[in-house]
C-alpha cells in the first residue's frame, strides 16, 4: 500500500482506509449529500471517535466501513482488502442493543460464534462465557433480553460483538440512550477491554466529552455536505476518567470547533 494520508498520525499499520468516499441519499423531497469526498485512515489498535452534529454523515461513514452501505464512489479497504459487504472482521454495535429477543443473553453471545465453523461447540461455549464474564454479566447468562436494563443490554451487545474476535469494532452511539451513571461505568469498561485486546475501534458519538475520554483521535465532521472538518489528537494516557480535568482543555477546543460547523446548518 503506497497510500499515505496526512491524518494518519500513528506509526502502526493502517487497519481501515477510507478513500474519497461519496454518498448521496435521494428521497422524493430532497437530496442529501451525506458524505462528500471523505478520506480517513485508522491505524491498527487505534481508538477513533467520529463526532459531529446530526446529519453530518458520521453514522453513514460507519455503515460504509461496516459494509452495510455501499458508497456511491470511493472505496474502503480493511487490511488492504476492498470492503464489499459486511464481514465478521468488522462487527458493529448499534445505539439500540439489537439483541435478539428470542435468545437469552448467552444465546445472543453465541450467535456470532456459531457462524465460525473453525470452533468446536465446547470452545464456543467457553468463549461466550468468557465474554459474558468480561462485561460482568456471568450471572445473567440465562436472562431474557427484556429482563436486562439498558446498560446490561449494551454490555451483552458488546460481548456479542467481541466474542467472534473481530479485528475492528464499529460502535454507533452505543451509549447514547443510557443514563449518565451507567455510561460512566461503560467508559471504564470499554477502555479496559480495548487496552486488554487492542482492537481497532471506530466510535460514533455526538458527545464531545465522551469522544475526548475514549479516543486516540477525535474526527470532527461537518454537515451538508458531510465532510471531515478537523482531526484532533488526544495525547492523554488511557484509562481516562470522564470527569478528569485533563479532558477539559480538549473538550472546550473541540466543542468550540463543533459549534463552528453549525453555521448554516439546519436544525432537525
Amino acid at each position, binding site marked *: 500500500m503506497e497510500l499515505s494520508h496526512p491524518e494518519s498520525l500513528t506509526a502502526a499499520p493502517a487497519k481501515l482506509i477510507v478513500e474519497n468516499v461519496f454518498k448521496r441519499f435521494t428521497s422524493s423531497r430532497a437530496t442529501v449529500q451525506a458524505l462528500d469526498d471523505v478520506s480517513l485512515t485508522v491505524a491498527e489498535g487505534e481508538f477513533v471517535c467520529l463526532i459531529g452534529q446530526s446529519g453530518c454523515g458520521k453514522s453513514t461513514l460507519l455503515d460504509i466501513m*461496516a*459494509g*452495510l452501505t455501499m458508497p456511491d464512489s470511493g472505496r474502503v479497504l480493511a487490511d488492504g482488502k476492498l470492503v464489499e*459487504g*459486511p*464481514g*465478521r472482521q*468488522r*462487527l*458493529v454495535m*448499534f445505539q*439500540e442493543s*439489537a439483541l*435478539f*429477543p*428470542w435468545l437469552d443473553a448467552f444465546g445472543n453471545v453465541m*450467535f*456470532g460464534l456459531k*457462524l465460525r465453523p473453525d470452533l468446536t461447540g465446547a470452545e464456543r461455549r467457553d468463549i461466550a462465557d468468557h465474554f459474558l464474564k468480561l462485561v460482568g454479566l456471568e450471572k445473567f447468562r440465562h436472562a*431474557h*433480553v*427484556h*429482563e436486562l436494563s439498558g446498560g446490561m443490554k449494551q454490555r451483552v451487545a458488546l460481548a*456479542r460483538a467481541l466474542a*467472534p474476535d473481530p479485528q475492528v469494532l464499529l460502535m454507533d452511539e452505543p451509549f447514547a440512550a443510557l443514563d449518565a451513571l451507567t455510561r460512566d461505568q461503560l467508559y471504564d469498561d470499554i477502555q479496559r477491554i480495548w487496552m486488554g485486546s487492542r482492537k481497532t475501534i471506530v466510535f460514533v458519538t455526538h458527545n464531545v466529552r465522551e469522544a475526548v475520554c475514549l479516543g486516540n483521535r477525535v474526527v470532527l465532521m461537518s454537515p451538508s455536505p458531510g465532510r471531515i472538518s478537523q482531526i484532533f489528537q488526544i495525547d492523554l494516557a488511557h484509562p481516562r476518567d470522564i470527569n478528569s480535568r485533563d479532558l477539559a482543555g480538549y473538550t472546550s477546543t473541540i466543542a468550540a470547533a463543533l459549534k463552528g460547523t453549525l453555521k448554516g446548518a439546519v436544525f432537525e
Partner: protein
Amino acid sequence: MKRLAVALLFFAMLTGLWELAVRSGRWSIVLLPSPVFVAEYIWGALLDGTLIESTWVTLKRLLIGYAAGVVIGLPLGLLTSTTQVLEDTIGSLALGFQTLPSVCWVPLALVWFGQTEGAMLFVVIMGTVWSVIIATDHGARNIPPIYARAARTMGSEGFHKWTRVILPASLPFLVSGMKQGWAFAWRSLMAAEIYVTILTGFGLGHLLHYGRELNAMEQVIGIMIVIVVIGLLVDRLLFSPWERFLHRRWGTNVKET
C-alpha cells in the same frame, strides 16, 4: 383460581337469567327451550355417540383444511413481504379475497367439487389462506430492520438468516396470523357444513342445520354451545401456550384471550 370462580359465577348467573326468561312464559317453549332441555340434549347426544362422531368429522375437516391453509399461506406471506412483484400480485389478490366472506365460496365449491369432502376443504382453505398470507406478510414487515443488520455483520446470510433471524423474529406475528387463520377456518367450515349436505360425514354444522329443520331448538342451541366450547378449548390448548412463551421471551404484552 379466583378468576375461574368469577367466570363460573358469571356463566351460572347467565344460565339462571335464561331459565327465568323461559319460566316467565313470554316466549314459546319451542323457540326458547329451557337450559335443562339443552343440557339433556347435549348429554343424550354425547351418550348415543352422535356428538362425538360429528365433532370428530368436523375437527378432521378443520385440521386438514387449516393445516393446508397455513402451509400454503405462511411461505406466501413471507414471500410477499420481501418481493415487490409478489406483493403487488399475490398480496393484492389476498387482500381482495380476504374481504370476501367465506360462505361466498360455497356455491362455487358445490359446482366444482359437488357434494364431496373436496368442497368442504376448498371452502376452509379459501377462508384460511388469505388471512394467513396477510397476517404473515404484515408480521414479517414489522421485524425491526436492525435485527437483520446485526445478523448480517455477524456473517448471517441467506438460509441461515431466514431460519435463525427472520423466522424467530416474526414468531409473534406468525402466531397471531395462525390464530386469525384458525378463526377464519372455523367460521368457513361452519358455513360450509350448514349449506352443504354430504354423505361422507355428518358434522356439527349439519346437526345445527337439521336441528332447525326439525324445529328442535334445544339441539340448535346445544350445538352452538358445543361449537363455542370447542373454539375456546382450541384457543386455550393450541394458542395460549405459544402466546405465554412469546410473552415470557419478548416481554411484550401479548394478549391472552
